[in-house]
């Protein structure tokens, strides 16, 4: 069986991802349509939340990716810092705009849901605040990559920033448990079946979560390919200028 480190070779990564990407994108598209159509058209209103419960199919999966996207960037950054594989640094760079977009979706849908349910668009609640800080870290991470010209230096600096920001990624997930205060409720899904939302909401939510994970993977592969090509182009142009 091939070692995972073989994919640190950009050529091998491009070949393999070219084969996987169409399948992943198709699966993501189908799962997204099935999950959202199921959730929007074929689930009942909640007895307390009314039809706003349908927002859960966007809010929970986007928040899942916002947090875990940063954790994926953390793993990729650690691989860069320890093993100096360029593909891992570029994968982290590729994931950041996706994570930032998912954070915006989670914040927007949360605010739109919160207005009728909590009576406010925003509260400085531990979970909401740590999520906002996570979004600012995403922006800082993207800006730092863009601001530093040398790729290796940019990868080093952004990796350190990613390590620091991971605190807020973890806080975004566990703030409710740590402080046990604020407006935001606990997890919508739990390993304990008794704590879960009702099955009629749970099943389409699972499909939507799977769809967002597949979409994230497909976009990370596509954007990592682009970053690898951009890096190769910069190297070729630099060589051309030297000769």
């Amino acid at each position: 069986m091939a070692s995972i480190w073989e994919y640190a070779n950009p050529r091998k990564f491009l070949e393999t991802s070219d084969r996987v990407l169409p399948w992943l994108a198709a699966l993501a598209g189908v799962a997204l349509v099935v999950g959202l159509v199921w959730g929007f058209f074929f689930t009942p209103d909640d007895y307390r939340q009314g039809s706003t419960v349908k927002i859960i199919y966007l809010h929970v999966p986007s928040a899942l990716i916002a947090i875990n996207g940063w954790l994926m960037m953390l793993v990729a950054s650690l691989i860069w810092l320890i093993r100096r594989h360029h593909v891992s640094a570029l994968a982290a760079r590729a994931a950041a705009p996706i994570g930032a977009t998912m954070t915006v979706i989670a914040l927007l849908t949360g605010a739109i849901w919160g207005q009728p349910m909590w009576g406010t668009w925003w509260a400085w609640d531990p979970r909401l605040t740590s999520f906002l800080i996570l979004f600012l870290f995403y922006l800082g991470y993207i800006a730092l990559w863009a601001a530093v010209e040398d790729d290796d230096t940019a990868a080093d600096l952004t990796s350190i920033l990613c390590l620091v920001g991971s605190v807020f990624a973890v806080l975004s997930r566990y703030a409710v448990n740590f402080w046990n205060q604020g407006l935001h409720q606990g997890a919508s899904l739990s390993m304990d079946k008794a704590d879960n939302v009702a099955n009629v909401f749970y099943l389409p939510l699972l499909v939507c979560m799977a769809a967002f994970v597949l979409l994230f993977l497909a976009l990370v592969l596509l954007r990592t390919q682009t970053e690898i090509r951009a890096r190769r182009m910069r190297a070729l142009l630099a060589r051309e200028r030297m000769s």
Partner: protein
Amino acid sequence: MPELGKYAGAVLSSYGLSLLLLALLTGLSLWRARRMKAALRKVEERVKRHG
């Protein structure tokens, strides 16, 4: 169309904004991927021609 009642605005704006952002993210990623692939091919051909 399901009956969304008094929360129709909240639900529809959530779906509209989210799908717009997802479409923008996917569209921009595809556009940049195609543009970069073409640009790299051009540079590689030029480098090959000039040794």
